[in-house]
């Protein structure tokens, strides 16, 4: 069956360091992958989209990679700040022509001052 796994439920990191979150998937051939941020009591907020033919995308302090051979995406936050503390969700587009997203459970990131 299709499965999305985010490496850990919680990740603690010191301020200023680079946070790396992992999203692995099995039995999928996603056309694209997205990362979202969710704060407590709020809906998810879109961060980045990467397509299957792209290796890397950047946006300010954020970087995402997509390896369709390893079936893995890595999400990096450089120079992390306490304001980056949130739950980060990866979401896979189910396939070509599909608008539906399947979400992972998320990784709760805490950046410690």
């Amino acid at each position, binding site marked *: 069956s299709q499965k999305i796994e985010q490496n850990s439920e919680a990740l603690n990191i010191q301020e200023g360091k680079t946070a790396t979150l992992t999203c692995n998937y099995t039995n999928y051939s996603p056309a694209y992958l997205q990362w979202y941020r969710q704060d407590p*009591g*709020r809906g998810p907020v879109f961060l980045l989209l990467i397509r299957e033919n792209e290796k890397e995308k950047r946006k300010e302090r954020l970087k995402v990679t997509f390896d369709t051979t390893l079936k893995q995406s890595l999400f990096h936050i450089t120079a992390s700040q306490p304001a980056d503390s949130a739950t980060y969700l990866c979401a896979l587009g189910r396939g070509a022509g599909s*608008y*539906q997203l399947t979400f992972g459970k998320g990784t709760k990131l805490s950046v410690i001052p």
Partner: protein
Amino acid sequence: SAVISQKPSRDICQRGTSLTIQCQVDSQVTMMFWYRQQPGQSLTLIATANQGSEATYESGFVIDKFPISRPNLTFSTLTVSNMSPEDSSIYLCSGRQGYSEQFFGPGTRLTVL
């Protein structure tokens, strides 16, 4: 970008009753979706709301339990029918234009006693 609002933001309901959640988008979107998120869990897609036609439901969700309307490109409702405590969850409305980012409402926190 699009801003999505939901009403009510939260409710406490009795078993056996029904609740209708409203979702309003401040601009036209091609796709609208309804998700459920239980504590500590990922978002689960309930259905895709189709304008002017019946919604498309995911496996495990049926129209009799979760009737959905979408009379135009900016508004949708989800009804949770004949509620039981197992329906206690956060219900999220989402909109999307093409394959780009997906916007989420703040969610409706439902508690069924």
